[in-house]
Each structure stands twice: as C-alpha cells, then as structure tokens.
C-alpha cells in the first residue's frame, strides 16, 4: 500500500546512486553556469514538435511530442448543459429576482451570470497510474486551478472573456457549456510530465471551437449547424493585417512551467534526473495579461522534491570497507556536516529569496515565460 503511494506521490524517485546524485548536484549547482547532463542551458527546453486539430471528433485537440518519444494528446469536448442556478434558491419566482439582483450588482451588465469553475472538467490519463492516484489528481487540480482562475482583467475589447474561461462558457442564464478536457499521455513519463501536459492543453484550448449561437437572450439555445462559422473558445483578435499572419489572442490560456532550483541556479524543463537532486521544485502558472504586455502570475504550487527521499552517500572517512577494520561507531548524527563529493539528501525547505528569484526568472520581461508564450504563438493553430 504505502509502496504504491510512494510511487504515486508527486515525487517520483528514480533509483540513483549517491555518487550519481552528488555528481549531478554539483554539476547543476556550479555558480552562474550549471552543466546539465544533456548539455542544455538552464533556461533551454527540450525541442518539441506540436500540431493542433488532429482529432476530428473533438471541439479542439493538440498533440505535442518530445524527441525521446514522450507524447501527449489532449482532446477538448463541449456539451450544453442546463445551469443549476443557485441551488439554494428554491422558489422559481425569486430565481428571476435573484438574477436581477445579480444584474444590478454586476456593473458589466451582459455578463450577469458568472460561470462556475466546475463547468470545466479535466481528466488526466497516465499509463501505469490509476486515475485516482495522487499524481494524476495533483496534476489535474494544478492545471484546472489556473485555467478556471485566469480571469481576464479589464479587457473591454473582448467582452466574451470578461469572466475568464468560466464566463465564456455561459450561454445565458439557464444554459451553459460544459467543457471536458481529456489529457492522455501516451507513454510512461520519463520526466515529471507537467510541462508537456500543460503546453498540449494550451494548444488544444486555442484550437477549440464552439458552434455559433443562433438563439438570443434567454430562450433555449440553438446553434448554427455550419461548423465553418463556429467560433473559437478563445476569441481571436480581428486586427490581423493579413490572413497569413499568425492570429493574435487577446486572452490566452495559462501555461504551467516546471522550475527547479539547485544551489544558486534556476533551471527550466528539468528531466527526471535533474528533479531528483533539486532543492526546490515549483510549478508556476502564467499567462499573458491582455491589458499589458507583462506576464501575469496565476498560481504557484510547490512540489515535493524527491531529493529528500534519496539514499545518503557515505564519506570515505566513515566507510567501513575503506578502513578495513571494525566498523567505526555508527554515529547516526555523524553525517550532518557536508563532505565534498558525498551526497546528502536535502532537508528543510527553501529560502524566500530563492522562491522570489525563481518567480522573477519566469515573469521578468524577456524572461522564460514570455519566450515560451511566444514559442506557442508560433504554432499554427488552424
């Protein structure tokens, strides 16, 4: 039982020897210029290939693959559902009044009914994990949280997105869209799969279309059955100069990046070995806010660094096999002091300054967050 939980917790511990861990840690924590095992620079991502709209049966879909063969497919499906408005208001007469009250309260007017977070459903399928294991649940919550939480701030130009994704799903007071986001990882993850899944979901949502609404106001919704006039879930700006240009999005879905800190260094898109020696692992969700060009922080979650569970190395001075004699008094606390080249499992937490630096590297102008969003903008979404 606890073995299974171990494997399913957010941290996956690869079996690495203390000597390897020590080598990795010291390489990655070299001041200013860490040496990653695959030679990347600290902010460099593994190259990936991406395509969208690959599944005709979905409202939107995307696939992203790494060179090592890890692939993720995301399909987005939408269905119309009746809104259970304020389940605690029983009287149907007062239901209308209640709606009016909300109308008066919310100055925006048209977006009278705000969306509900539970209209977005997300499920993650990872081979080798049950869908109620901790890892898929944790990943799903993490991605859903930033998705429904991203409220576009003060963007008058896109009134559809006034309430964020949730607001977009409202059809009228009595009907709404329910969005099913199904994430499929095609192979057992070779690294913590969060960035892959998040990027794929991002692209799938960008390609998602909803049928054009023909009904107006509070009547029961009916839709244009011409798929060609369907509208994008994330509206595109009309300011496009020529059709060949990549479309611009006033509002973009969030992207969750995995960032680790090793020593003084902040490292992006870590592979499994790199996570194994990290001092701190953070999942940072960002998006580009519509009103400014700055990156906007949506959520941060710390992830349990697996380095806490690793096996410590034994310094030569304490190694009984190197002394040749009887074992030295096995002093449990003797391993407190750091010996160069000997692995010690990380203990304790992170300094606030380290967290601040990690966030800053993501958010700063021209930083990694901006580059990732730009990179994703370059993907042609049909």
């Amino acid at each position: 039982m606890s073995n299974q939980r171990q494997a399913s917790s957010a941290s996956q511990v690869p079996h690495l020897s203390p000597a390897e861990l020590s080598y990795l840690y010291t390489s990655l924590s070299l001041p200013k210029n860490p040496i990653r095992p695959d030679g990347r620079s600290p902010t460099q991502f593994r190259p990936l290939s991406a395509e969208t709209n690959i599944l005709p049966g979905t409202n939107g879909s995307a696939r992203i693959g790494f060179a090592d063969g890890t692939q993720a497919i995301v399909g987005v499906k939408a269905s119309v559902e009746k809104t259970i408005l304020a389940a605690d208001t029983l009287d149907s007469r007062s239901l209308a009044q209640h709606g009016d009250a909300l109308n008066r309260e919310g100055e925006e007017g048209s977006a009278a009914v705000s969306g509900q977070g539970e209209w977005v459903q997300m499920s993650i399928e990872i081979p080798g994990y049950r869908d109620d294991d901790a890892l898929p649940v944790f990943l799903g919550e993490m991605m859903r949280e930033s998705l429904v939480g991203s409220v576009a701030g003060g963007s008058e130009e896109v009134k559809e997105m006034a309430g964020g994704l949730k607001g977009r799903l409202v059809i009228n007071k009595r009907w709404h869209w329910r969005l099913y986001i199904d994430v499929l990882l095609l192979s057992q993850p070779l690294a913590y799969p969060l960035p892959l899944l998040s990027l794929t979901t991002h692209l799938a949502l960008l390609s998602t279309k909803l049928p054009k609404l023909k009904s107006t106001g509070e009547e029961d919704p009916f839709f244009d059955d011409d798929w060609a006039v369907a509208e994008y879930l994330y509206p595109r700006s009309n300011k496009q100069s020529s059709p060949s240009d990549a479309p611009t999005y006033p509002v973009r879905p969030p992207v969750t990046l995995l960032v680790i800190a090793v020593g003084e260094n902040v490292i992006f898109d870590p592979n499994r070995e790199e996570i194994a020696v990290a001092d701190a692992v953070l999942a940072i969700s960002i998006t580009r806010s519509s009103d400014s060009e700055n990156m906007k922080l949506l959520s941060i979650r710390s992830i349990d660094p697996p380095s806490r569970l690793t096996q410590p190395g034994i310094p030569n001075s304490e190694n009984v096999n190197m002394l040749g004699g009887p074992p030295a008094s096995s002093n449990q606390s003797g391993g407190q002091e750091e010996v160069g080249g000997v692995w010690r499992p990380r203990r304790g937490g992170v300094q606030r300054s380290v967290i601040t630096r990690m966030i800053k590297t993501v958010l700063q102008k021209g930083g990694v967050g901006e580059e990732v969003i730009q990179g994703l903008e370059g993907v042609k979404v049909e």
Partner: protein
Amino acid sequence: MAITILAPVVENAAPYNADSDDSLSVASDEDVEMTGTSRPHKRQRLQGESNIATGIVTPGEVVTDDPQWMRGHGTYTTPLSTSIIATVAGTVLKTNKLLSVTPMRARYIPEIGDLVVGRIVEVQSRRWKVDVAAPLLAQLPLSAINLPGGILRRRTTADELQIRTFFSEGDLVIAEVQSVHQDGSASLHTRTLKYGKLRNGVFLAVSGTGGSGASSSSVKGGRGTKSVAGSSLAAPGGSGTGGVVRSRRQVWTVSGANGGGDIQIILGVNGYIHISKLADGAEAASSATENVSITRLEEMASSSIYSSQNEDISAKTRREIARLAQCIRVLVQNGVRVDEETVMKAYDASQEVDLEIGDEEDEDDEWRQEGREYLEGAKAQQILQYVMR
C-alpha cells in the same frame, strides 16, 4: 530562445507499394495493393526462388520447408510438417545448417564473459539483485565480490550483516557475467580490480546488444538494436542498428578536449553506459600492474572500490562528460552502433561543429555560449555526417 517548437515530421511518408511504378496512381490503388497482392506475392517468391526466406521475415511466416535445415532461435516447427516458421520479426541468419531469426529489437540476453554495467535494485541476505536490462534481474552473490582488507578470506556472517555497506539499492556496478542459468538470468562477479562500484560520472541507458533502453533511462532505444558484429554503419535516419555492440574494448580512456582531463568511458554490453572522470588512483594502479604482487594490488584497489564519495571534478571535465554523453545519445537516436570508433568520431565531430558555429556567432554573446553542448537538431545531423564519412 528558451523553447523550440517544431512542426511534426512525417517519417517515411511514402506508402508501401510493392511494384507500382506509376507514381500518380499510388493513392488510387493503394488499398488494393496492400490487401490484395503484397503479402501472397512475397510468400510466393520465398518458396519459389531459394527455399529460404531472405531479408526480413515476420512471425508466422514460413522461413523454409526444406527438411535439411535445423531450427534455431526465433523459429518453431510443427510436428505435422517440416517447415520452419519464424516467431519473431527479424532477419534470417544461417549458421551452417542452423536457421535462426535474429530480431531487430529485443532485450539484452546475457552471455558468459559480457562486461555489463548494472544497477542494484534489491539487497537480499547473501546476494544482490542487479538490473542489467535483461528480462530477468541478474544476481551478484556476496561470494562473487572482492572483500575489502586485501586478503582473500571466507565470507563471514559479519559480512552478510553489513552487506549494504558494499553495494546498496541504486548503486551502479560494473561487473562481468560469470554464468548464465537455465532461465536466462545471469550471475555476475566483480572479482577483478577493474570491477566494482561506479562513481565520478554520469550514467545513461541506451540499447545494448540485443537490448532495449531501460525504463529508467532518459534515452529510449533507437530504432534497431541487435547488431551483428562487423555490420556496416547504417545511414542516418535509416532503420539501422543502434546501441552498444560487443567489441574488443568496452572500456577506454579519452583525453578530454578543452582541458577536460582523462575521462573513462564504460560501454556495458547491455547498453548501460557510464562516463566518468578517471579516478585518481586508477592510472597508477594500471601502470603498476606488472610489478606488484597480487596481495599488494588488492590493498591498493580496495581503498576506493566501495567508495560512494566523488572526487573533485572540474567544470571542464564535467562539460566534456556531458558532451560525450550527448554524442552517444545522438548516435543511438539515429540508429548508429555505439563502440569506441563511432563514439570517438562523434566526439571529434562535435568539437568541429562547435568550432564552426563559434566562428559564425558572436563570441561575446554569453547567452549563446551557454547550452552549446546540447546536440539535438542541426548539430546532430552534422555530427552524423562526419561519423559516416
């Protein structure tokens, strides 16, 4: 740029089309070709021409029905007929009158005398279980290791009790296959001074001789794996034979460029590779081999054989180790066999590619300088071309 996103590449998009020479009609009669003629056509040819299928056979395909042949690995016979039928997809190998099918991609099958790199996965009372990328875990008995102290002595219960002080879970060992059991599992030994615990470097798992990349690896096995010794290099991108092959030297020392110092490369036959800084004492020990008595040697080696403490490794050495690891990854991902020759060629090529790029780009741009060792994409192709030359 932090992130590179590429358009998907369609690999080998041309549909299989046996004998259509009219390229315009491909799309129209493709289905007919696939279902109607291609397979029976192939069978016909096999039986008609030489009696033995050549090239690639698939499971269930009759290799030959000539009774003079004996059946080998990868085939089976039915009592009712004399035909030999393939059980794996691969190429037909004839050894005198023995017919066997060597699969294109399979697990590592241990053979006596193989030098392997393994990872301890379980500690039992008198032995270790070692992952060597084979179908079954190999075992390393306590009696098959050199005990410290320099003297050859009997194993005591004290040794059994402190078995974890020799090797513990996760430790990497270099060992030799001492015997292979009936069920295909191997027994290892480390009773030579060059065997023991590995440290000072990085581990990577690629496909080995008849081996596939292991689950814990960051590099998955390339396209083909089982390599026939002496086979020529495959074309890059083609379905060649990648992975480590059995060769004369599995362990050698490279003098790293850019002040990298001496780097030791261990290519385990099973596809597990360890690249490390050459241990300080190792040079002296090897040079002294001739004139030191055996007992003396034991003493020298035992000082580091079970150590899990890394030496001081300079940043330059680390860089070159990372570069070598990348070179091997490039080779494997493109289906090129990995041995001393190809690794050294790729390593030289990577230096050369770097120099070329260095000329083109502004040297002062520090951002560019970083991440130079990352060898995927265009650099990989350049390196491959050089290796192929």
